């Protein structure tokens, strides 16, 4: 059974300018020990999908559909019921470690809070577990760090603390929302290898939300590309990278610097801007920016269909060859 199974999820926000549809019915499931990368530009709905799962939607947000966590519908649960799950069986690593730790609480207090809340441990036992976990995420002198405040640690160190906090209760599912975006490159690599190790060791299902394809390539087994609240392409990580079938995926890959082709070709950006979610273009949402668009793209929204075992795409074009 999948750890999390999302079916036909729609997330919308009521704003003074009208309804904004951030997620337009996506399906996704993640198994134990699997890592799925969710890729897309800002505003593609990748974060909001999992905010809905965590019960963290903004006040004006509404979600419809099903989110089954270990077979139990968790969409629409009250905060009390959700609190049994979140932080415990399902936890989240936030994007910015500089702001995601409470500034006036010692690292130790924040870590043990999770354990005393969910596992009913005493202070002493919780502290011992927390120290052990800090050691696992390779923080030097963990006992000393426990007594320090967040502002006394560096960004990479704080992100490791966040990871430790998320893993303390040994969750079934770990959601990492842009876990490396706020870190500098050398630290990114360390944090990624750390997450890979921990995932393999604890057999946790990992959802990696990012716009950085490099991160996905290094960590994910499967990739889901989102655009304007829809899944446009999905497949195993190798084939997505070597053989993208959706023009948007191809655009993303072409806009990424590649060390093996340095100097040979120029980086190409995807022309245009992400669409206004209140006024999506008719037919395919990517059409206005797409080099391969033809009449059918305007009239009919492409459905997500299987093109090979484990591979799906939502595009009317069979092949992406250059159009004259």
């Amino acid at each position, binding site marked *: 059974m999948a750890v999390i199974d999302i079916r036909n999820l729609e997330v919308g926000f009521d704003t003074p300018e009208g309804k904004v549809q951030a997620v337009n019915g996506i399906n996704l499931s993640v198994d134990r020990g699997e890592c799925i990368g969710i890729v897309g530009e800002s505003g593609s709905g990748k974060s909001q999908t999992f905010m809905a799962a*965590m019960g963290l939607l903004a006040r004006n947000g509404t979600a419809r559909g099903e989110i089954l966590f270990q077979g139990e519908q968790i969409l629409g649960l009250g*905060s009390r019921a959700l609190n049994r799950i*979140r*932080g415990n069986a399902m936890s989240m690593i936030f994007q910015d470690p500089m*702001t995601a730790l409470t500034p006036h609480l010692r690292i130790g207090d924040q870590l043990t809070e999770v354990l005393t809340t969910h596992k009913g441990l005493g202070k*002493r036992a919780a502290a011992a577990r927390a120290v052990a976990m800090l050691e696992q995420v390779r923080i030097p002198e963990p006992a000393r760090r426990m*007594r320090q*405040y967040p502002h006394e640690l560096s960004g990479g160190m704080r992100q490791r603390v966040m990871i430790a906090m*998320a893993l303390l209760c040994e969750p079934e599912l770990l959601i990492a929302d842009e876990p490396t975006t706020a870190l500098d490159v050398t630290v990114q690599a360390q944090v990624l290898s750390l997450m890979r190790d921990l995932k393999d060791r604890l057999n946790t299902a990992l959802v990696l939300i990012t716009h950085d394809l490099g991160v996905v390539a290094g960590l994910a087994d499967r990739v889901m590309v989102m655009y304007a609240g829809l899944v446009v392409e999905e497949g195993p990580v190798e084939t997505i990278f070597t053989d993208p079938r959706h023009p948007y995926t191809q655009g993303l890959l072409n806009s990424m610097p590649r060390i093996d082709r340095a100097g040979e070709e120029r980086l190409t950006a995807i022309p245009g801007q992400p669409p206004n979610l209140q006024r999506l273009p008719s037919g395919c949402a990517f059409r206005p920016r797409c080099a391969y668009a033809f009449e059918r793209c305007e009239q009919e929204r492409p459905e997500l269909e299987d093109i090979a075992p484990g591979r799906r795409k939502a595009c009317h074009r069979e092949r992406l060859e250059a159009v004259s």
Partner: protein
Amino acid sequence: MTNGTQAPDMAPPVRGRSLWQDALRRLSHNRAAVAAVVVLALVVLLAVVGPWIAPHAYDELYFDHVAIGPDLDAGFLFGTDTVGRDLFVRTLMGARISILVALAATSVSLLIGILYGAIAGFVGGRVDNLMMRFVDIMYALPFMFFVIILMVVFGRNIVLMFLALGAVEWLTMARIVRGQTLTLKNREFVEAAVASGVTRPRIILRHIIPNLLGPVAVYITLTIPQVILVESFLSFLGLGVQEPLTSLGVLISEGADEMETAPWMLIFPATVLATMLFCFNFIGDGVRDALDPKDR
């Protein structure tokens, strides 16, 4: 946290330095604030122990020393009042009552104001609306009228005055705290706490309230002098503490009546009051600077 495990090597035990400890260190480098703290501490100390060690009792009448000026030989440092009581010990007694009222009323306002404001701000929506409209209504009630009615119905007593003052002062506190909470609750660390399954009361108490103590600390230093002033005003109107007990306001009111014949009766209590208010304002200034070093 003192019984935490020690680092394996023999490095000196590091105690993390919290933002508050940082602020305290900066405050101690602010000369005006430190001087104000020292002076205020002296006044408070005198007010607390003075009446016990002073040679005269605050309600003892000396019929042969009525309304005399400061006279060290007779042992009247500040002189006596119109019925022959030692003004020095009465001023200290008055300061004691004023400080007591200030502390009690400020604590009441803190307790109610912080909880009320934090809950309104964090829960938000309709609850927030209802709670804050109630505050608006309370604001709209004429305060003096409210106090006079209370005094008429229940008779004059100090406890009632604490309650009346506290009941008014918490309103502003609640507004300040609510505003701070609104900005805090969308910060990532609160979201992270929600995401890690911490219960809502715990989030308010542990993750939000300690974070808004900065502005609250500043506001406290403004509330205390304000409460002292309002108490003086009430006593001046004859609604405050009752004879023979006294407060700075009562003393100033009596002194004002005898300003022409016995100016010391006004000067000494007024100086003590002014000194205390000055000190609180300097401390408030210092606390604000210390908590927000970038914004000077």
